């Protein structure tokens, strides 16, 4: 099984096979001697050579994080044979979606659809846990769409705006 894996923005190719209770593993072409036990869901006890790591996996607002001990890495896993993941990967090159990082309420919308914004310009203000947070544009561009309304409740991952 071959995976294309992105860790903190850097791409890796992982060739991973499992048979007879043993793993064979090549990371970017390098053979790695590994031994893994899923201690419980989302917790892996991983030995590489004799070094031992407790690795945790979580999704926060749609983003996959892999924690090696207490170091967090942003991760994406794609199986190159999968059409679906290729399609999803292509997503990243389209217009830029701005999503809610946490659930909350839309208290203010600061721009109109069709307006041009600078990188860092405030787009909407979200309130949660008695605090307000201004969500900013990640890039310069035109605000294509603002699918939320003032006063609306949003969930983590909901699209707040699309900037082209």
């Amino acid at each position, binding site marked *: *099984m071959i*995976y294309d*894996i992105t*860790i*903190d923005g*850097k791409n*890796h190719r*992982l060739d*991973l096979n*499992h048979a*007879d*209770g043993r*793993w064979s*593993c090549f*990371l970017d072409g390098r053979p*790695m001697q*590994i031994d*893994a*036990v*899923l*201690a*419980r*869901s*989302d*917790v*892996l006890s*991983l030995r*590489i050579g004799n070094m031992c*790591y407790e*690795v*945790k*996996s*979580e*999704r*926060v*607002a749609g983003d*996959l994080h*892999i*924690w*090696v001990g*207490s*170091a967090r*890495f942003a*991760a994406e*896993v794609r*199986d190159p*044979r*999968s059409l*679906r*993941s290729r399609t999803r990967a292509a997503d990243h090159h389209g217009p830029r979606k701005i999503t809610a*990082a*946490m*659930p*909350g309420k839309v208290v203010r919308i600061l721009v109109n659809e069709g307006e041009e914004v600078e990188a860092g310009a405030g787009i909407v203000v979200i309130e*949660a*846990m*008695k*605090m307000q*947070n201004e969500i900013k544009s990640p890039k310069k561009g035109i605000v294509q769409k603002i699918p939320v309304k003032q006063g609306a409740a949003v969930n*983590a991952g909901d699209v707040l705006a699309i900037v082209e």
Partner: protein
Amino acid sequence: MFKKILIANRGEIAVRVIRACHEMGIAAVAVYSDVDRASLHVRKSDEAYPIGAAAATESYLNIAKILDIAKRSRADAIHPGYGFLSENPRFARACADAGVKFIGPTAAAMEAMGSKTRARQAMEKASIPFVPGTSRGLESFEEAAQVAQHIGYPIMLKAAAGGGGKGMRLVHALDELKSALDAARSEAERSFGDREVYIEKAIVNPRHIEMQILADEHGNTVYLGERECSLQRRHQKVLEEAPSPLVDPDMRRRMGEVAVRVAQAAGYTNAGTVEFLVDQQKNFYFLEMNTRLQVEHPVTELITGFDLVHLQIRVAAGEKLPFRQEEISIRGHAIECRIYAEDPDNNYFPSPGRITLLLAPSGPGIRRDSGMYQGWNVPLDYDPLLGKLIGYGTDRDQVIARLMRALDEYFVGGIKTNISLFRRILSDPEFRAARLDTGFLDRLLERREDKKSDTAAADVAAIAAGIFAALGTSASGSNGAADANSRGQDDNSKWKAASRREALH
């Protein structure tokens, strides 16, 4: 002793008080808002009553509803925890009127301490040292300008009803005074419904040190040592320790005796905290009194060996203090980390959501007071405090090392938390050298965290990501890793299902 106590609170402090009740053979009554039915404090209670909508004014701040539940459940006392109604004299008075014991000071003592200007007047009378400035609200800009010139800039404008940094302005010179005064007044009006503002001399890089006191209803008052609370962000404490590395036994005794006089001047009973500002010459000034149990009370418990909630309940039941001042001793060192649902990558903005995995630290010297559990959905309606990790050690170095170890064991998956912040604080050389003041944390956060790219760990992450995906793939098949320790039962995360679908595609 009471037979049944209603806890007018939620989260970790409600759990903390329920535990004390159970240890004392007292039934614990929980109240909960609509979004808190699944909260830990409800799970652990003996009786639980819904009290209304998520908004605190509809539930945890609603005096009439809470007293109605006290009556229906036949509770003979109410513990208010901290926050919510804990420092509300109207609530304390309503409890007394309803014949339910309020576990805390009297309404009169709260009122004496509730207004900062009234408290300063009382301290003036009792010859307690406090930060120079006015003890009455400012009448006019002219008066403010006169007082400010008299005590010397920089000065602080503060709301008399203040708290949490609201209605506060630092003023460096006369030309800033007018707009600062207007701003402080209108913020005080908005926040507390009271525009009274007074002046204090601004102490440069002060330390914030507070003294725990405890008074019974028979005239006995003791102090239980100080806590160092200088590590604050936006005037909210983040990490506290006891004892303060700054305070030696003589200073402790002097501060403690002043704190006892403050409490006595106010006719104070039950547990309370006297806050001091300490300047760079180690002069200490009375700042205010918190008329409730503090979030950070566990550090005092660890160094004194006492249980403050047990003692609160015993004192409220009319018992005398079970020890005298000279029987109280301080041993070792304790530090508390407040674990918040906050996003460190997004300026520590609150981050509610579902906890998908919880690995909790334990072992020597580790105490965990928490209101969360795996599977719980952190609601977005309240303060984002999830729990507290408290370490104890023979000395300060040991407890720092121990907390670093425990933080490495702590994992809260599915939501963002500030756990990584404590690693930064505890490994900071200035912190280790105990060079602390209230500006410490802002300075730390201004410095970019130098994330050294750890290539080896990134490789581990890449391999692990692949294995997680591969195990998801063959969830129902047999594979060695899973066989070695039968697979977790808990397997249907969306992600795994997705990677399974893709792999089979």
